[in-house]
């Protein structure tokens, strides 16, 4: 069956049958019994893969961990505030506790004293989890290349998206979150007990 919207992240659902006509007309299957069944099915039954569904729901409701360290934190707050509203993209609630968050936006420079704390917070987050390195300091050490700053948070935790800038504009951060959403939608997930999984990778 043709699907005018196409499979993929914009519409993970393949709808059985053609797209419904505009509602001014009387439903064309109203008189025909199998037609009535078919139109009911068209409206109420959706087919997709579990992977697409899971990825779609994970991508569109990311809960960031409130982990602002330095100046980038202020731009992150501006991204959540009015004007740039990150919650349009699903990142509505900023969870203070790592146990309830799935995205860690490392916003700011990571000092040597903070590094073990950061690793502990990352370990406390449940799977699946992602990390955005926001700003130049989190990506690579930024302006500061000395004894006190870890040269890039990817020396401590695996990073999914790097957002450059010093600080990145709120739009850049939103672009980074959207890129992360694309990455999540493209990832492979693992189902079933761990001992039956042949390969590691994807969303876990």
């Amino acid at each position, binding site marked *: 069956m043709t699907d005018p919207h196409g499979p993929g992240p914009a519409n993970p659902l393949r709808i059985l049958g053609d797209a419904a006509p505009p509602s001014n007309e009387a439903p064309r299957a109203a008189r025909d019994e199998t037609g009535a069944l078919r139109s009911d099915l068209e409206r109420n039954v959706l087919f997709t893969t579990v992977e697409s569904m899971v990825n779609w729901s994970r991508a569109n409701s990311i809960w960031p961990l409130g982990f602002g360290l330095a100046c980038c934190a202020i731009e992150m707050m*501006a991204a959540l505030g009015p004007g740039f509203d990150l919650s349009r993209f699903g990142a509505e609630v900023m969870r203070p506790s790592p146990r309830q968050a799935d995205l860690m936006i490392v916003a700011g420079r990571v000092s040597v004293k*903070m590094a073990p704390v950061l690793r502990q*917070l990352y370990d406390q987050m449940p799977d699946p989890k992602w990390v955005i390195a926001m700003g130049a300091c989190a990506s690579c050490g930024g302006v*500061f290349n000395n004894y006190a700053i870890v040269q890039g948070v990817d020396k401590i935790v695996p990073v999914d998206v790097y957002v450059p800038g010093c600080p990145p504009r709120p739009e850049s951060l939103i672009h980074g979150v959207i890129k992360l959403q694309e990455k999540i939608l493209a990832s492979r997930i693992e189902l079933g007990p761990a001992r039956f999984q042949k390969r590691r990778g994807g969303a876990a």
Partner: protein
Amino acid sequence: MTINMGPQHPATHGVLRVALELDGERILKAEPIVGYLHTGMEKQAEYKTYTQSIPQTDRMDYLAPMSNNLAFCLAVEKLLGVTPPLRAVHARVLLTELTRLASHLVWLGTHAMDIGAMSMFFYTFREREEILAMYEQVCGARMTATYFRVGGLAHDLPVGLLERAQDFLDRLPGHFEEYTALLSGNPIWLARTKGVAVLPRERAIALGATGPMLRGSGVRWDLRRNMPYSGYDEYEFDVPVGEHGDAFDRYLVRLEEMRQARRICLQAIERLRAIGPGDYRLRDYKYVLPPKEDVKTSMEALIHHFKIVAHGFFPPQGEAYQGIENPKGELGFYLVSDGSPKPWRMKVRSPSFVNLQTLDTMVRGRLVADVITAIGTLDIVLGEVDR
């Protein structure tokens, strides 16, 4: 019982860790543990020329970036013994007072949000976005401006800035009314801030508190008035002083400071209009870059430009300390020069670092919820505390 607050905590304004010793809900001792954002700025400044250290200063108190730039540039200018031209001086005043507004707006939004008044955050950030748009018009960056240079400004004020600032300042009293209406008479706000986090006057002076922490406790001390710098002696403004030293008084002091900052900005705009176009940078090419048109036509200017950019300028051997009235308190830079283009020592007197010592005095014997109010009313920025 000892519990630990932070370093990752929604209400600690950055990576502050407080070790609280409790007896039930009463606090016996509150010890702030800092250093989670230590960046080695003072060490790094010894390896960079003076101009290369200016971007570092933005990242210290990142809520008032141009204020930090001003302090550093004034300290270097004091060491060199030069004064920038009038247009630069008053442009600096205008931008520094806008910075004060921006910093106090963030303070108000986050302090209120911590106490529970969530909508204040959205209102104040809306105003702050307009100030950041002005920053962007002036220097290209929303937050980390690095706009002031030794001897003046990096480039001239853009066309349209004064009108934009005037328009913003004209709309500001309406916003102040909003904030006052939301908070000043609000019984919950009064219950959470009146009589809470009291800092007695003598203790404030002994602990080195400055800024609204000191003025809220009844000490009439403002560096802009008592030890003026950068043309502030020509401006008319009031210095608000509190009475009881509690969080509510500091809230009123900062709110009034915002109104006075607006007043100073309006005077600065008038002055800039009166001065008209002119030099925005000193024409002392031993220390300051010559204008680009001269660099393209005159040999001496080209050589000066090359020397200053490639090596940096050579200040005299000596030292200087300059303190300014940052929105958070007295921000000072102590520079020791050995005659080379890189400072021998740059020490930052950071207001938040010294003010944070008052936390223990303010919350002893109070409840845990008052710690949040106390941290909010301290208005600390961890980038400045830890440098």
